[in-house]
């Protein structure tokens, strides 16, 4: 028995060590160092766009950028990747910053708002991306833990008890997927951020107003490939809305506290509900297990009405006259789609 265990350890230990060393040293998503984010933040604050960026910690970048901002933007967007295309141009404002982060959970939104507040920055208007998973306690979103201290600052500020939060980024040290990304970087080299004045580039570009433009391949994707992406999106687990058994009362409370804070700070709030691709929407609408997606939309609209908050968009693409050509995939509108929704609001 002991001999068997020894052999297993003898065989697996070196593999695990190699896995840890490769994952830590290559660090494809820059989880264990902030140099990459700092470089991007400096370039953006200096009024440049930055391209050729890949796999950085978007939360750490927000912390870095907000820390470096000299004045408070008049309009701020707080949301997920679904609102990253909202920019100063389609909001008609030069004092604008998009602080969206991929897969933003309620904790992300509170924490990033808190970053502004910690700097005594109170934007005039906040466009709040209301994704359906905001009220799902089982959304699986964990990335906010890299800005957990701001989350606890928020809790303190509303008189709630702070939470013990363990950051499980160290799990990535033994993650096979992280290892695959590391090996790809070893083979192809790591993308280094490149300063540019162009908006559209071959690779994903972070614009100086915090919004993004996708890489050329993503922007120019064909209809068929988009449909493939939609199929992959609805096949299996749907992003962050699995296990959506109830509208979390804790998350509801946090959202209401956030709104109250914003109101106290004289900030105009706008709810932005990004639609799903029509095929994805139809699929979700038919599944009983996703019923809380629609319950949450009703809930958001109800509190918007109570608090006199403007609502733009809907999870239902047909409510905002979007069709399949307004999407990049199952849940991301393209620029045309975002512009259409915003133009309805501007009218």
């Amino acid at each position, binding site marked *: 028995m002991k*001999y068997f265990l020894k052999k297993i350890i003898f*065989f697996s230990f070196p593999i695990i060590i190699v896995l840890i060393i490769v994952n830590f040293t290559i660090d494809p998503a820059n989880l264990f160092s902030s140099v990459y984010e700092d470089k991007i933040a400096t370039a953006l604050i200096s009024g440049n766009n930055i391209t050729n960026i890949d796999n950085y910690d978007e939360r750490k970048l927000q912390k870095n950028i907000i820390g470096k901002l000299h004045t408070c933007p008049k309009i701020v967007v707080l949301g997920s990747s679904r609102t990253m295309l909202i920019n100063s141009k389609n909001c008609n404002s030069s004092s604008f910053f998009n602080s969206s982060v991929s897969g933003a959970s309620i904790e992300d939104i509170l924490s990033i708002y808190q970053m502004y507040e910690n700097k005594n920055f109170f934007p005039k208007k906040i466009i709040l991306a209301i994704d359906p998973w905001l009220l799902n306690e089982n959304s699986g979103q964990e990335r906010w833990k890299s800005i957990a201290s701001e989350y606890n600052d928020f809790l303190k500020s509303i008189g709630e008890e702070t939470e013990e939060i363990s950051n499980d980024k160290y799990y990535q040290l033994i993650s*096979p997927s992280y290892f*695959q990304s590391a*090996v790809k970087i070893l083979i192809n080299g790591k993308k280094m951020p490149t300063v540019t004045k162009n908006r559209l580039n071959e690779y994903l570009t972070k614009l100086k107003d915090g919004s993004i433009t996708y890489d050329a391949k993503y922007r120019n994707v064909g209809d068929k490939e988009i449909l*493939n992406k939609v*199929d992959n999106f609805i096949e299996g687990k749907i992003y962050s809305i699995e296990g959506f058994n109830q509208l979390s009362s804790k998350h509801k409370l946090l959202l209401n506290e956030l709104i109250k804070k914003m109101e106290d700070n004289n900030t105009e709030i706008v709810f932005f509900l990004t639609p799903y691709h029509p095929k994805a929407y139809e699929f979700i609408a038919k599944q*009983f297990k996703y019923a809380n997606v629609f319950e949450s939309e009703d809930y958001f609209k109800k509190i918007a009405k109570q608090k006199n908050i403007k609502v733009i968009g809907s999870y239902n693409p047909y409510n905002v006259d979007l069709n399949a050509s307004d999407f990049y995939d199952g849940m991301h509108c393209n620029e045309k789609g975002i512009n259409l929704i915003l133009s309805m609001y501007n009218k």
Partner: protein
Amino acid sequence: MLFNSFNFAIFLPIVFIIYWFFTSNNKKYQNLLLMVASYYFYACWDYRFLFLLIFSTLLDYVTGLQMHYAKNRRIKIFWFWLSILINLGFLGIFKYYNFFAESFSKGLSVFGIETSFIFLDVILPVGISFYTFHGLSYVIDIYKNRIEPEKNFIDYSLFVSFFPLLVAGPIERATHLLPQIKKERKFDYEKASEGMRQILWGLFKKIVIADNCAYFANIIFNNSEDYSGSTLVLGALFFTFQIYGDFSGYSDIALGTAKLFGIDLLKNFSFPYFSRDIAEFWRRWHISLSSWFRDYLYIPLGGSKGGTWMKIRNTFIIFIVSGFWHGANWTFIVWGALNALYFLPLMLLNTNRSNLEIAAQGKILPSFREVINILITFSLTVFAWIFFRSDTISHAFLYVRKMFSLTIFSVPQIELRAYFILFIVLIFMLIEWFGREYNYGIGFIKNQKSKYVRYFTYLIIVLSILLLGNFDENEFIYFQF
């Protein structure tokens, strides 16, 4: 908790260490530990359905004892049918109710009768088809006086819920598993090593073969109307290897895991894609289910003993029921019926047992005739899988029609990576070919004398998993059945 998840990688060593270090001298504690671990394993999916599992276990346990001690035959029959009806009732409600309601409703609407059946919004409890069949075989065996009932509830409960087989089989028999549970188990180095090797190979099949093939199979099947015939052929091939890698990979991990605890489970796969006829294929694919249907359905119906019409009837019944077992959809029924059609000529010509040994046994390469037979059987199987994978019958027929259009001669419209995956599949099948006389694909490694060669091979497999695997923790297909 999936076998290919981080949680399982933590769970298994913990149970293993407690089992051999703290309970190794006591069979009672070993079984209790495995039972608790199995219930925990199941509760990780959905603790609510744990009560269903425990109820089903209790029902069959009590039924077994009541039938054994019944004072007269009527009481025995009462308990027998009570258990059968409740077991099948659960299966019917959770798995088939909506299907029947919908089919009746559609059927009646043909005659202009509109009905409004109530449809149930229930999730299918994972593994229900498997543990129900465990229980059924136990009750039937006691009823037929083939076995004595198990008196120890923990032992019986472990027989039903042993975590390696709980959610997707193999479907065990009381005659095979219960004696092992009752026996003193001492750590066996050879068996444990064999288990680890089989787990490694199962993970390779699932993470590298099945999950990579699934990516392309899903794209092609979901958009079949947009693709050329040649691409659809590739789609069917991808699904063929996906389902094999997925289910046989699961079975390898299950069998390997059980070996770590000193328990041998029934073999579930035996290189089915090297079969030379459909009868051989069904002796090598999901063996525990095929043999269950043979013993508890086909033989009681008269098997192949009656006249020609009876043989035909029984063949269709067993294949259609087997198809229906996989899911409440007409696609599975057609898949079953298609296999019955494939099987029928062999049975009528009495050649269904002509290929009992593995192809090219004792030789490296098959004969020309064997190659042809393997290719024909494989093609028939690939064709049948189209019905299994399609969402609806009309989808399947459209798929087939498009596949056999003139575009079958065009260049497939698929990204380059797909060819790379097919290349990996080819290497995988070559390894399986060389391992076909063993219990699993890399079973031959244990005969390699040089430990350096052995460890190098393991290292290559681990690296292949790490570098080529798909780590999205995709569920195993058979969990849904």
